[in-house]
């Protein structure tokens, strides 16, 4: 004889210690089980796409910094690739290699925060995230050396990068790259085979392979579900076809697989940086483009493998100094559409852990 229960609506509201920004989940709970979940976002909308129409092509680059504020270099890179596709500019070799180094360093930094925040949501009281922030500080110092800022870099330019690296950069990067695999091993020893994490994250929040492909997910969310798709190998941009690296994939598509995929991707990024440092040529870092660029009339779409997924910029130009339309395909928003199906039937604690494992940045979702 079943007990009659009545579901009630709980608002895991916009202001919450673990919603990675301002995101509201209107959950319908039956006891502890999530029966339905409705995501409400838009609290961080700043009108970036509209603001981009009123700034010059170079002036949009600081705006793109603030999309996914934890991975600014990748945003800059995607936008600059789109403008170069429109305008047909070439980029010198040294600039390409510097772009790759910065993008991979940024990938490590973003994954550190993603994994740390996920473990924080699982309840590990800040210890893993503090260790990971300690390593992230080193990466931010490296970026600080190159472009003067630690979070919103404004480093890539149309036709190259803005500054060449200073003398102290390569020795510091070498020291970092030699010690980073040791730190990743330390994180593994702390938490990889931890029984409680296995119980919390294995089998929880499963995203089936067909659903992942149908909603056009990208990044670790897609690769965790078993699809071996990485834009750096499938549609190589910049000089990625000159490096050797593997693409880690998961099998089941649960939170644990996504967590493992991110850790392995960090290892592969270190490998790419080592190869790029060896192959770094001398030369200019920026080709000669006019101060105010006027690309010919047309449209272009450029996508890259950002840490959170596939980040794409669609630019329409009408031969003026400002873009006519700049549309942004944000990976976090597309990955978020699967949240409802991943969470129904699980408990509140699993909803929070699953949300943490998708790795959302609200700056991208709301733009």
């Amino acid at each position, binding site marked *: 004889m079943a007990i009659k229960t009545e579901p009630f609506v709980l608002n895991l509201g916009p202001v919450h*210690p673990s919603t990675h920004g301002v995101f509201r989940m209107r959950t319908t709970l039956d006891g*502890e089980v999530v029966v339905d979940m409705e995501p409400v976002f838009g609290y961080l909308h700043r009108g970036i796409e509209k603001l981009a129409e009123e700034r010059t092509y170079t002036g949009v680059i600081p705006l793109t910094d603030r999309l996914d504020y934890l991975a600014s270099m990748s945003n800059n890179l995607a936008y600059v690739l789109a403008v170069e596709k429109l305008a047909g500019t070439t980029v010198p070799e040294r600039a390409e290699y510097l772009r790759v180094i910065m993008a991979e360093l940024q990938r490590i930094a973003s994954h550190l925060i993603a994994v740390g925040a996920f473990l924080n949501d699982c*309840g590990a009281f800040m210890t893993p995230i503090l260790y990971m922030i300690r390593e992230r500080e080193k990466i931010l110092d490296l970026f600080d050396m190159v472009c003067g800022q630690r979070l919103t870099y404004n480093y890539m330019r149309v036709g190259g990068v803005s500054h060449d690296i200073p003398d102290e950069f390569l020795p510091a990067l070498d020291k970092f790259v030699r010690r980073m695999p040791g730190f990743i091993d330390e994180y593994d020893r702390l938490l990889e085979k931890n029984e409680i994490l296995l119980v919390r994250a294995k089998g929880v929040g499963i995203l089936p392979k067909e659903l992942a492909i149908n909603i056009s997910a990208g990044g670790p969310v897609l690769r965790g579900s078993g699809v071996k798709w990485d834009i750096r190998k499938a549609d190589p941009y910049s000089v990625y076809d000159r490096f050797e690296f593997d693409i880690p994939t998961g099998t089941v598509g649960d939170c644990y697989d996504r967590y493992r995929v991110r850790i392995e991707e960090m290892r592969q990024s270190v490998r790419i940086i080592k190869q790029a440092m060896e192959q770094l040529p001398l030369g200019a870092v920026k080709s000669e483009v006019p101060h105010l660029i006027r690309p010919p009339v047309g449209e272009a779409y450029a996508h890259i493998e950002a840490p959170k997924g596939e980040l794409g910029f669609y630019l329409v130009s009408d031969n003026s100094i400002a873009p006519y339309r700049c549309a942004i395909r944000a990976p976090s928003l597309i990955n978020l559409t699967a949240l409802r199906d991943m969470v129904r039937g699980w408990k509140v604690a699993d909803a929070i852990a699953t949300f943490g494992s998708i790795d959302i940045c609200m700056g991208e979702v709301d733009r």
Partner: protein
Amino acid sequence: MTIVETSLGLGGRLAALPPDWPGGYWWHWLVFVVIILIFVVVMVMAFIYMERRGLGRLQARLGPNRAGPFGILQPVADAIKVLLKEDIIPAKGDKLVHWLAPVVAFVPALMIFAVIPFQDGALLVDLNIGILYIVAISSVAALGVFMAGWASNNKFSLLGAMRDVAQVVSYEIPLILSIAGVVLVAGSLSMNKIVEAQSVPFILLQPLGFLIFFMAACAEVNRTPFDLLEAESEIVAGFHTEYSGMKFALFYLVEYTEVLALSAIITTLFLSGWRGPLLPPFLWFLIKVVAVFFLIFWVRSTIPRLRIDQVMAFAWKCLLPLALINLFITGLEIVALPDGLPWFLIFVNIAIMAVLILLWSRFFRLGGGRVEV
């Protein structure tokens, strides 16, 4: 020595009546009440300080070090801040219950210290049912938590309070069963006699009992990995979301007082209390209490927390059968060797514990899974 003989001799009908105290029983009572209050307040503040600095060092950072030299006055600063805050009562909540809840939660935690021996025979009252009194009193604290959750008129708080009541009630049973194992070996329920029977500390004679007691007691006082009702990342602050000011301070104190009580009980039951070679017994007691507390917050800094259905499954499917088997094996040993336990039983017990843990981990599944909606 006279205190000990007198209290042992009078046994169960009267409390310890030391004849050489001037003024008799009431002076003894007054002195010990003052000692216990001072001990609890000072040690709780020391624990708050130790935990914050210790967690900081375990996480590669310093803890608070600005309030006073090395941050020693940090708990005092917290207390002053909390006293000066406005007392907010939810408009639609139940006001009387809201006011009573911290009191109901705090008083039992304080009452536990009446039977803990600080030194040879130095307790407030040497009940002959010492450990049973502790178990009975600690169940009342859960009621205070539930009252807090109910009176806050807040869905998060109610959710947190219900989780807490379920957890505390489930973990009482393995707790009591593991205590029963210790009582069997010691031969008495009185805390003083349990310490005196420990020429070999019971952690070696009852390793499985120690582990079960430790985990069940961590669940009782809501420490990681069972702190899901104050899980900051899920339900904000659980049952004490709507509390501010001195009432919140009382809940905060309740948590640390219970942890202190738990450390003191573990020291008495398993680590042979105040016994030790060179230093005065009170100092040994303090050292062991601090060591147990270190273990507790070391665990807190490392492992994530469990989900509520996993917590319940762990209690009922894993700890309860292990506690029963432990009791059974202890009983067998007592019956087979009635004149004291020889030392080689230590190794036998540790081997049995290893085998049981291996077997149980292989065979039981932890709760939940997806529910069809």
